[in-house]
């Protein structure tokens, strides 16, 4: 399963959405030095604090549930951070490169922009996973605007009905757009949902 690969939207729509995945194999987590490197990675991520729109670990929840320090203590083999701009992504990637952690770092986002970012800081991308789109009975899918939000949770835990429900609540002034985006993000169990982008997309839908 490739949870962050299938985010819907064209290049313009995806300009504020980059997911960084830092990891190692489950087996290597038995090595205490690798565990320390993962903790160092959390320190680097936390230095970007509010510039990250979300962070978390595999099945560990997102920033709505735990702090950087709490995630750091969990010793998970795969951690995530979501960036809303390429500049911060670049700065973070550069810092990880400088520290020479030896951990695998994958960036999920606009391929051309990620490639450009790597080139600017002297990295040579090794492997790519890319998507060819959606096939089959596509009339079962919700509207593309809805998909742009739902596909930010790779486990598909954000339902189209929830988006409609929250839009209605925002329309009735029972909730702000930011609260609606956070409620959507809360359903994502890995912290890869981008609430800043969701807020923008909800605003455009209302």
């Amino acid at each position, binding site marked *: *399963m*490739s949870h*962050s*690969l*299938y*985010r*819907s939207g*064209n*290049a313009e729509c995806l300009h504020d959405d980059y997911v960084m*995945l830092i990891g*190692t*194999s489950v087996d290597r987590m038995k090595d205490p030095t690798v565990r320390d490197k993962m903790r160092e990675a959390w320190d680097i991520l936390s230095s970007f604090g509010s510039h990250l729109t979300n962070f978390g670990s595999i*099945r560990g929840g997102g920033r709505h549930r735990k702090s950087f320090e709490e995630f750091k203590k969990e010793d998970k083999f*795969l951690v995530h951070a979501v960036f809303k701009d390429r500049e911060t992504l670049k700065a973070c*990637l550069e810092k990880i490169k400088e520290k020479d*952690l*030896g*951990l*695998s*770092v*994958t*960036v*999920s*986002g606009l*391929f051309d922009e*990620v*490639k450009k970012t*790597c080139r600017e800081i002297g*990295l*040579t*991308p*090794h*492997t*790519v*996973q*890319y*998507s*060819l*789109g*959606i*096939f*089959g*009975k596509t009339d079962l*899918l*919700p509207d593309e605007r809805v998909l742009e939000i*739902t*596909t930010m949770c790779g*486990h*598909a*835990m954000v*339902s*189209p*009905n*929830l988006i*409609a*429900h*929250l839009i209605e609540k925002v329309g009735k002034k029972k909730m702000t757009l930011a609260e609606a985006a956070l409620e959507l993000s809360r*359903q994502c*169990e*890995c912290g890869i949902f981008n609430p800043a982008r969701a807020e923008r997309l909800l605003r455009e839908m209302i």
Partner: protein
Amino acid sequence: MKISKEKCIACKACHPYCSVGAISFVLWEEKKKSEVAQADCVECGACLRSGVCPTNAIFMPELDWPRKIRAHFSNPYAGPLPGLKGAAPPPDPKLNEVTGRIPEGVTVVAVEVGRPGVGASFRDVQEICKALSGAGVTFDPGSSVTGLMANPAAGELREEILNEKGLNVVIHFSIPHQGLLRGLRALMEVSPWINTVFSIGLSNRLDEDGAIPTASIAEAAGLTLRPHAKTNTGLGRA
């Protein structure tokens, strides 16, 4: 997933949280109550984890075989089922600079049936597996779907699971670049005949200049690369 009729107060709070829209009202002892349609529920647990039920009426019952495979393909906390005995899990492009399990000249294909958010019956999954098998594909032995096959060479799943479903059922296979076009064409041919959606993800070693070596093959199959991708930056070390 189930909802206790005794505890439910028909507030409807849980309805929008269901990933597949399987919760609706029914009449029970002349009162309106929420119920999860068991045929549609994929056992993802989203309704329970949302925590919105004010009376804790939602619960996860003990699941028997084969229904429990719904959770394995839908609930993030259930974990995947094992593949064929002794087989390693499918190659992970996120770790490929360390493991080297996706070598040059080979594409790892993930056909994610039911994605995004629609869900799929295993009958449809089998249709796709059969089409791929006919195109000469060998399924990844470590993949959960391969582990559920009665006859991997023919792409046939075990009979007892065909009426089950999952939110996202991934078929994995590795294929040399020269066989990829045939595999993609097989997927396009079966596409109009299934009752769900599927997404296709391809993993490759990049060329030295950063180009995707199989882009032209995908285009020859009439397919367009999405602008979004997952790029392994090459920082990992063994």
